[in-house]
């Protein structure tokens, strides 16, 4: 299973990157491939391509502000949480996704 994610927070200097790191390392730990785009003070980095989104089983939005280019995810299954949640209990999120998608 592969996932894509976007992280963003109000100031764009801390939670955006902490959440991204937490999602990536938890994915590695659980053997789930996840590509994370950050929308922080430095703008969009590691941007998700159309193919990335197309091939993903679901989209994780760990955001505290509106996401830029949200229309890319139209029609995809979206899990929207706060960046704090992504930092605090990332495993719970992955478990939930696995359960719901029956993987």
């Amino acid at each position, binding site marked *: 299973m592969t996932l894509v994610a976007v992280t963003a927070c*109000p*100031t764009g*200097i*801390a*939670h*955006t*990157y*902490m959440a*991204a*790191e*937490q999602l990536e*390392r938890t994915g590695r730990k659980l053997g789930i491939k996840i590509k994370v785009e*950050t929308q*922080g*003070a*430095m703008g969009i980095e590691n941007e998700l391509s159309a193919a990335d989104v197309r091939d993903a089983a679901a989209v994780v939005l760990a955001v*505290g502000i509106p996401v830029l280019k949200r229309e890319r995810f139209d029609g995809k299954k979206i899990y929207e949480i*706060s960046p*704090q*949640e992504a*930092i*605090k209990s990332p495993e719970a999120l992955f478990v939930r996704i696995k359960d719901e998608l029956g993987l």
Partner: protein
Amino acid sequence: MAFEFEFAFPLPLGLHARPAGVIQEKAESFAGDVVWENLRNGLAADAKSVLSLVATDTRFRDPCRVRIAGPEGAEAGRELRGLILETLPRLESAAEEAAPAAASDIPRILLAEKAVFFRGVPAGPGIARGAAFIHDPGPGEAEDRSGPVRSPEVETAAFRAAANDLAAGILGRREQSRERTERAVLAAHLAILRDRAFTAKVEEIIASGTRGAAAAALLAGRHFSEMLSASPSPYLQERMADVRDISRRLAARIAGPAAPASEPEIVLSEPVILAAEDLSPSQFILMDKTLLRGLILEKAGVTSHTLILCRTRGIPAMAGCPGILTRLRPGEAVLLDGGRGLAVPAPSAAVARYYEREAAAEEKRAGLRRARAVLPGRTADGRRVEIAANIGDPQDLAGALAEGAEGVGLFRTELLLLGRRSAPDEEEQTALYTRLATESGGKPVIVRTFDIGGDKPLPFLPLPAESNPFLGFRGIRLYERFADLILVQMRALLRAAASGPLKIMVPMVATAEELVAARGLLEKARAGLAAAGIPHRPDVEFGMMVEVPSAALIVDRLADYADFFSVGSNDLLQYTFAADRGNPAVRGLNRPLHPAFLRLLRSVVDGAHERGRWVGLCGEIAAESRLLPVLVGLGFDELSMTPSAVPDIKARLRTLDGEACRELVRGVLTSGLVREVEEALDGFSAAGPSKDGLIVPALVNLRSTSRTKFEALQELAALLEGADRAADRAEVEAALWRREDTFSTGIGFGMAIPHCLSPAVRAASVGVLRFENPVAWDSADGRPVELALMLAIPAIEKSKGDAPAEQHAAPAEQGSLKYLARLSRRLVHDEFRDGLKAAADAAEVVRLVSAALAD
């Protein structure tokens, strides 16, 4: 022949008693009547009466007309116009300009503790604590203190004697006073006491035969204060207090010592916060202030003379808080936060503790400011750049030195000439320059000889009207025609230089011939002094301003006649681009970062250095922090600026690498577009703060005694300030709180990462606190916080249309943002957090964080 002129009133605080006193004094020297008319409200005044002038309620930018009758009409008119438009704006004292800032954010702890507090207008910064002392002036003024009414002749004589007596007392006090503001206030009181309209009113009441002298003085005082109070202007309401103050003292004087005192004397027996409806300036001046910790005036506005006196003494104060008198209980403890305009009665232990820490941080800040003021201007790699101040009044010298100026790079002498009928003579000038030389404490003072011209007309220098004064007869170009005036100035400068390190600089030089002629004048002045046996310093350094491109291109040749150079960048810019800096349609052309201008500056610096001459810059761009790498890279030996910019520029200079600045300039000199230079400069600044600079031991406290989030954010802002990285501690604290407001930065795991983007942050920084006792932070997992790691980033304000300004990371901060993003990513790793929590000392924290940044 009558003469009249119209103008917009130039003083932001309106026509109050002090400027009115200056105008009255000048008007008094003319034979004919002088009428002042405020065209906004139609009120007219006799300009020979201060009260009458003040009653016109003239405010900032009001259209006014002054009409002068009599033989001196035209000349007197020009003189008066110069006085109003040129001299008055410069006389407004520093204490007044230091208008209290807009009330900043209320410390969150007051809201959290549900503390009772009163808001007022900040009227004197600082934090004070004392017992509430409510000053109640008692029953209203007695109508008559002098017993039965005697004959008008006797009463008039009593009034005149008392007025003379009181005036003599005020004069004596003024002479003793060492404080400039106090002297000015006393002078204003004297002006009211001697005012023609006031005196006439008192004598008119006495002549009616119904009132004695004391009652007449009180009635006249009331008459004028009612007249003033009819105006909605808060400034006039303040002046009302001055009039009442004087009339009461006059009445008391007439009544004699046997009569009850007009105002009870204020006697303090413990440290107090004094609260009063209002306090007259005389009461303030006369009272013993040793136990006065703070002052709250319910009715006064910040321009009240009493509050101005208070500020110059450094006593915290607050004004304009109706109702506070009845709500403070005498004797209860009160905290006064003068900088924010807050008074907190009976503060809780937590609030008191917060403010104790605030006062300690403030004391530390003042100490660091003093310590930094004596640091020499130097880049991080040790290249010396002298940071000096531009001033025009010897009064400003002490303030400039206190800000850390290493000398005066430009003393403008033409201000001495404005508003005068004749040039100051040699003795007067010698005294003034000697004062500069002796009070500079051995630091160099560069005095620029008179820079006058068609745009600054003077009554004693008949100059033709010019269609284009900036390209006309000005600066050194006048020196041949007015050689006597310059000769006197040069003699005075040579004499004064005997007592301190003065240097002489001439303005507007375009050719070597002009410079040679000016040197000839200097030589003549020297020979004259030597022949007369007058003590002087013969070998004073003689330099020139570089303001004209023709001079900028031959600095190496001008060095034959000049010992040093200073670039006047304001004029050099507009002459280089042929764009009037006063004309909004074209002034945008004057871009200091344009490669053409940089090449011109390079030729000035190289030309001077080739000949072993020293070269500085004294225009407005010296104060622009953003341009500093370019000016340093060009190789200037000195930058001279407005005194208030000195601390920031010195702090930025300490972070720059001199060699990298040179490299930057070498790279952009061949550019063709200003945008290319700007991009290179932004790129340079972004690369500037190395990852090692983001955290230093001074930004780490592993034994924090902060007990609450309030104290922790306060301490982090203070750490940043202590490390020379915050321009405004309170603003950084408020910015950290604004971020906490969106959602708590407590990320769980016993950690919080407070952060902010703020223009008050000088350099991107990481700060770390480890708490002795874990602090509640509304964390995601509910656990208290053991460790707080702050990320602080400089920001710029961007406003889009009418939307409130948003703060964005400064473009130069992309590099630090990248490092901080890296650090944030590390924070979710347990071993990194555990390492920080267990660190033995600040050095280890710095090492761990730096390693994370380098990953």
